[in-house]
Structures are given as structure tokens and as C-alpha cells.
């Protein structure tokens, strides 16, 4: 996967994850192109598009569009499943997630994504493992009183 974008129906960007180094200006252009193309699609259209040499897979969940750019050899259908899995993870974490949750807690959305994907590939195929890892990291964040160098694995055993 080359990139993953989340944007609203008005074209406002809510999350952007880039898996290859791209100059800032080009990132902006890609975002513009994606939002234009995807927002122009009719409601019951196919979820796959072609853009330059990439396959674009997008899915709309309520007021948010989840859009990712794939290389030619990647499987579009499994990418749809992957987008769905990410939404499920967000839903589990926030409880009935909506766009506002992602706006006001964008850094958490990134943390969840970073437990699910790494370098553009899926790193964990089990929902429970990902959720547990996020919870553990969150707890670690709360623990401010542990002195530096504490073996935290004794406090929070790894899954």
C-alpha cells in the first residue's frame, strides 16, 4: 500500500498515512485528486478506481471516506476487508465511533493504525491482539510515576 487517507464528505482531511517518501507538494496534489475523484462517485458504484499506475480502493462509512492506494499486484478485495478491519478496530476502541471521535482524537486513530499496519502491510490479523496492544500502550501512557528503566514487561505482560 502506498497511502491511506480519511476524508469527510466536504473533502476535509481527517487522517493521512504515507508509506513511501513523497514531497509535501505532491502529497497535497494526491490528496486533492483523491478527494475529487472519490467524492464524484455515485452512491452505488464500484469501490475500485484507476489512477495513474495505482489501484484506488475506497469505502464510505457514514460521513467518512476511507481511501487507499495500491500497487498493481495487490488484491483489491482484501484491501476492502482491510479497510473494514480498521473501522472495526476504531469502533471497538471508541465505542460506536463517529467522525468527531477521529477529529478530536486523531493521534489515537494514528496509534491504532500503527498497531494494525506497518510499512504499508498488515502486521496483525487478529482483532483481539491489536486491541490488547492498544490498551496496554494507553495504560503505559497513563503511568507517569514509574521510574525510568523499570522493566515494564513485568507490569504489563506482552500478549
Amino acid at each position, binding site marked *: 500500500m502506498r497511502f491511506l487517507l480519511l476524508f469527510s464528505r466536504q473533502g476535509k*482531511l*481527517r*487522517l*493521512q498515512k504515507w*508509506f513511501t*517518501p*513523497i*514531497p509535501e507538494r505532491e502529497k*497535497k496534489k494526491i490528496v486533492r485528486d483523491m478527494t475529487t475523484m472519490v467524492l464524484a462517485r*455515485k452512491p*452505488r*458504484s*464500484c*469501490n*475500485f*478506481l*484507476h489512477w495513474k499506475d495505482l489501484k484506488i480502493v475506497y469505502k464510505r462509512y457514514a460521513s467518512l471516506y476511507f481511501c487507499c492506494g495500491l500497487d498493481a*499486484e495487490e*488484491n*483489491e*478485495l*482484501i484491501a*476492502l*476487508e*482491510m479497510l473494514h*478491519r480498521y473501522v472495526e478496530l476504531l469502533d471497538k476502541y471508541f465505542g460506536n465511533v463517529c467522525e468527531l471521535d477521529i*477529529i*478530536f482524537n*486523531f*493521534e489515537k486513530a*494514528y*496509534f491504532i493504525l*500503527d*498497531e494494525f499496519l*506497518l*510499512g504499508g*502491510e*498488515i*502486521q*496483525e*490479523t*487478529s482483532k*483481539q*491482539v491489536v486491541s490488547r*496492544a492498544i490498551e*496496554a*500502550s494507553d495504560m*503505559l*501512557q497513563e*503511568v*507517569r510515576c514509574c521510574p*525510568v*528503566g*523499570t*522493566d*515494564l*514487561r513485568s507490569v*504489563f505482560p*506482552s*500478549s
Partner: protein
Amino acid sequence: MSPSVRLQEMIRVIRGARTQGEERGVIQRECAAIRAQFRQADNGTRSHNLAKLLYVHMLGYPAHFGQMECVRLIASPRYNEKRVGYLGAMMLLDEKQDASLLITNSIKNDLSHNSQYVQSLALCTLACMGSAEMCRDLAPEIDRLLRASNSYIKKKAALCAVHIVRKVPDLGELFTPAARSLLCEKNHGVLHGAVVLITELCERNPDTLEQFRKVVPELVQIMKGLVMSGYSPEHNVAGISDPFLQVRILRLLRILGRNNDTASDAMNDLLAQVATNTDSSKTAGSAVLYETVLTVMDIKSESGLRVLAVNILGRFLLNNDRNIRYISMTSLQKIVQTDHNAVQRHRGTIVDCLKDQDASVKRRALELSLALVSAVNIRSLMKELLLFLSSCPPELRAHTTSGIFNAAERYAPSQRWHIDTILHVLTTAGGDVRDETVPNLIQLITTATELHCYTVHKLYRALITDISVQSLVQVACWCIGEYGDLLLRGECEETEPVQVTEDDVLDALETVLQSHMSSPATRGFALTATMKLSTRITHNVDRIRSIVSIYGSCIDVELQQRAVEYNALFKKYDHMRAAVLERMPVIDKSSPGHTNGESAGGIKELEQTKLTQEVVLPKDPGNQVCDLLDLLGGSGEPVPSSGLSHTVPGPATSTSGGDLLDLLGGLDVSPAPPSVKVYEKNGVTLKLQTDSQTDTGMTITLTATNSTDGDITSLTLQAAVPKSVQLQMKAPSGDVIPARGLGLVTQTVLLNNPNKVSLKMRVRVCYSSQGAVCQDTVQIDSFPSPAW
């Protein structure tokens, strides 16, 4: 107020801004505050300030002043600060920034941190934005983590290794052993990472690919386990056990089995099993089946398996889910060349998809339909394509029309069908056709001699209905000009004839001439057509004369030139008018006038060709006068000698060339280009004529005629040329020469003479005449000059 509330407070304020200007103001203030905070010493709010900055960055505002803060936060011992620092690094830093190098050390330290969550942060950041240098530095660390850590870290290390291999392919060798051993893991996350890593290694290094072919049995076992296993709640998606892992394994198997019989054999059974047992009612199952089909088609699978795969794609075509129909068609497109017959079986469904609402599906269906056109299905498929054209989205029209024309040209069952099809396309989508369509169609019409009457009737009807489609109007004008007499006759076998008067026809042409919708090229066509009609109609020549003289003062230079020349044809050269405006010969597809993109110019060139073809440039000036008499004596009519002197511009008997029309003064203009008689015996005459000549070759046509009372049959011509000359004989027009000069046989010969040797040719003629077989050889030492 806890700092994180302030972040959310800021977000709320920004969202509350009513205008872009207001938003910019708020953001400028916040950024100033953040910058000030960054400069201060550590006050416990750094992570939140950076988070605020990252939000601002996502809105599109510059945030580069936060880069150093990211570096500082990454180095902090506190987890919450590290977390935001790494996030900031992934968002604000990329390998092109200098600051990214500064975090290499922090990453190195964090890779060996006590806490796996800190290690995870470092691994994630390295995999996201690690530069080649950083990767080289840290590769040994990653390799260590691949071998000796818990599964949580192993899976991340594996994907980090993938990134490193992408950045620095040479390091692939470092990770190969570890990758191999990871396949023994039970943890799905680690397995998935291992498969991705092995895929990457094999794609980049053919030797590694060879090595990993040995693990095909192991991969097959893992897949079998997944497919046959019972319900596993942790990995189950819609009844499929870990579809993500299954898809990755299938993809790796594809790479390993490609071009290798042993590996392909080893996975054959498994693929059959997956193909038959996977439930495709939901996307997850379909994804696995899709990947299976791709793998089957790409490896050396046995034919039964291939048929199974194509049938799966056929089933997908009938699926309600649009996505599945779409990917089915993209897959069929990939295999339509190699497994053409298998795909043909699903033609009906594919053609139905042309009517789908979705633009992507329509486009795929169109590509596939065009690829499936064959001589067998051309009629029915063309009906569907024409139906599609009438309702297809505008962005697909040009592609559809050119696809239809290509298909028609290759597989047209009859000329009438071909002409009908092209006319249909022009009427439906004439504005979206290529420029060459007009001359192509005209050429097609001239060759279909029996259909001239039919064509001109159809085109006349189209013209009086609608003159807005330029391509159609141009062809219609040309036809009416050429075959207007057939139109006026009012009888036609193939279609209902129109009853028109000469005035009606001239009205139609004049409408085109005067309409603002007509392009200059179209008006040129109309004017020339009007002029041609002057020799085909009887009563209204004066009307044509007046039209032509009016346009002599037209502002459009092209039209003016034409009108002036035609005027001259009326006035000074009226005696030549009939010959000049005679019926055109069949246009040869390869003639230069034809390849001229601008159709109006092309036709004009052909007209000028007619005028100049009587200019003979003899090669040897010696006995030219006698030869000329011979060459032009085809019809036996006397040639006035005064005119003769004008026709030879060569050194011996030249007069001032003057303008083109002067050269033809007094000559009996016959349409046949000069030909040399090379053989005459038993009533069989063979003539040779040069069609075109270049420095390194020429095209000649041999024409055989028969003046005996019986038909000549089994005519064959063979030719031999000097060694360095290349000869290509085109198919003859037939092998029977009708008796009494009622018909002839022609054969075109192409000669390529790259070494420019003197061209000689020996021709052997074989034929049967009145029961006897005759065979003769002729030597040709000199060739006549070309027609023009």
C-alpha cells in the same frame, strides 16, 4: 486544565471559525504560542503542544518548526512523549529532511529498550520513514530482533526488514536465513510478516527465489491448515480463517510457481481444494478465490485447473456485488489473449455488463468485448456495441468508436455490412471519431462498386436529416458528388430509392455550403461535390455555374481557390470539364493522398492527380515521340500533334510548361496511366504500368487482357529479379481472364531496390487457353515512368 483538554479545546475553536480568514488567525495565534513553548524548558506540556501542531499540519498549514521538537521528544524517557515524538517524526520528517538523521541514534537505543512498546514505536517509525542510510545502520539490529524476541516484536521486525530490503536491496541476503526460520512459527502475525518478507526477497533476487522454492510444501501445509481448520474465533472473517494470511500465502505461491513445473505441481492439489471449498458469499471468501484464480492462471497449472479458474471468474461475473464483477473483468482481460476460448464462453454475461450503471464496470466490459470480437460473433457483438454506443458515457465514446472501426475492418462479413456499420457510428457519434475515418470510409465506398447506388441513397437521406455531424456530411457530400447520377435515376435495388430532382440535390449541397455549422473542410467538400454534379445532371448547370462564381470571392482562401479554378474549368476549359470530373478510379489504400490526415486536402490531391497523370516524363529522350503515341494510343484515337509538343517537358522537345491545365491542351484525357505492353501472344496481352517510384523501389501493376473468343483460365504470373532486389507479389485479382476483352486480371508487384542496381525483371506467364496449357517467359529491361 489538563493539557489534553487544551488540545481538544483548540480543535473546537478552530472548527468554530466561520471563515477561512478566521481559521487562519486562530491557527497563527496557536502556532506562535506553540513556538514559544518549544523554546522554553521542559514543562510537561511538550507532547500536547506537538500534538496540537500535528493537527494544524493535517489541516494543511506549515509545521516544519516542529521537526526539532520531534527529535527532542523521541529522546525523552517518558513514554507519552516518545509516542507523540515518533508520531510527529512520521508525519513531519521524511528521509529528505536533515533532521531525520538525528533520530537514528534514538531509534537504535529504543530498539533495545526494555519495554516492547517502546521497541514497537522505533520499529514502526523506521519502517515508515527510514532512509537508506538509517536502514543500513540499523539492519543488524533488526536481524537480531527477528531471531530472539517475542512474537509481538518479531512480526514488526519482519515488516521493518521488508522496508529495509525495499530501500537497500543488497541487505536481502542478511535477512534470508531468519525469514526461513520464521515460517515455523504458529503465531499468525509473525507468519504473515514472514510471508511478506519472503515475497519481497524472492521478488528482488532470483537466487533467493530458487532457494525458497523448497518451502512450497511447507506453505501448502500451512494453507491446508487454514482452509480445513474449524472455526477459529480469533482469525475468522465471515467464515474464512484468516483471509489476509491466506491471500498472502497464495501470492507467494504464485511467485514461486511461476515458470517452474515442480513447484507448480506441488501446489496443484491445494489450489484445487481452495478453489472448490472456499465460500464466496462474502468479500473475504471472494478475495481468497480471486487470489487463487490469479495464481492458477500465472503458474504452470494443468488445464483442468485453468478451466476451473475461468469458471470461477465466470461465476463472479454473475455476482450481485459490483466490485466482484469488476475484478472478474479485469482478470478476464488479462487472460483473454492466452485462454481466448475459455473467455468466449462467458461472452454473453460480459456483453450484459455493458448495460451496467457503473462507469468502471462499463469501461471494463467494453475493453473485454472488443477483445472478444471474432469472425464468428461479429454480427451479434456489433449489434450490442452499437447499442452501447448510443447510450455510453461521453468519456468512453472515442474509445468505443475506434474499437468498433477496428473490429469492423478486421471481421466485416460483407462490404454492405461494413458501410452500414460505419454510417451507423457516424450518425450516432460522428463527433467522436478519428480524423482518418472520412478518407477510410470513402476508400471503402469506392471499392464497393455494386453498392454505390445504395450508399448514395443512404447518405442522401442522412444528409437531409441532419448536417451537424461533420464527418458524416463530408462523406455524404463526396458521395453525392461522385454518384449523383445514380441518385437522380431514382431506382435502387438494395434500398428504397428517393425521388429527388436536381434542384433538391443542389439545395442540400447549398445548405451545407451556407450553414454556420459546416467547418471549412466540409464546405470544401460541398463545393467540389456541386462542381462534380455539373457533369452528372442535365438541367441545372447554370445554377452550379452561379454558385461557383459566387464563391470565387469567398473570404475563406481555400474555398476561393477552388471556386476560381472551377470557374476557369467552366469558362476556358469547358471542353475538358467532363473528363476532369469523371468518376474517380478505385482509391488505392497506400496512395499518399490517402495517408494525409486532413481529409479535404487528401481528396484535393487526388483530384490534382487526375489532372497531372497525363504528364509523361520519358526516361530516354531518344524515341519518345513514337512511344508516346503508343502509350496514349490505348483507345486508338488520334492525338493532335500540337497538343503533343506540350506534353513532353523533357529536354528534347520541350515547350514552356505553363500551368497545369495548359499541358493538357488538346489531349484526349484517358483515365488509364501509361502502360507498356510486355507480352502479346495468342490473344493474351500483358501490360506493365508503374504505380509509384522512389529512389529505392517501385510498385508496378501487371494487367492481363484476353481478346480471344474463349476464357483464359489458370493464369499465373511468376517473376524473377536480380539478386539484390527484393520482390513481393501481391495476390492477383483472379486467375480467369474473360473472353473478348470483357475483363482483366491485375497483379501488383512491389520491388525494393536498396542497392539501386539497374532494375530488370523476368516474368513467366502460364495459362490455359482452349484446353491447351501455354507458358512463356518475358524479359523486361526498362520500366515506364510512373503515372505522376
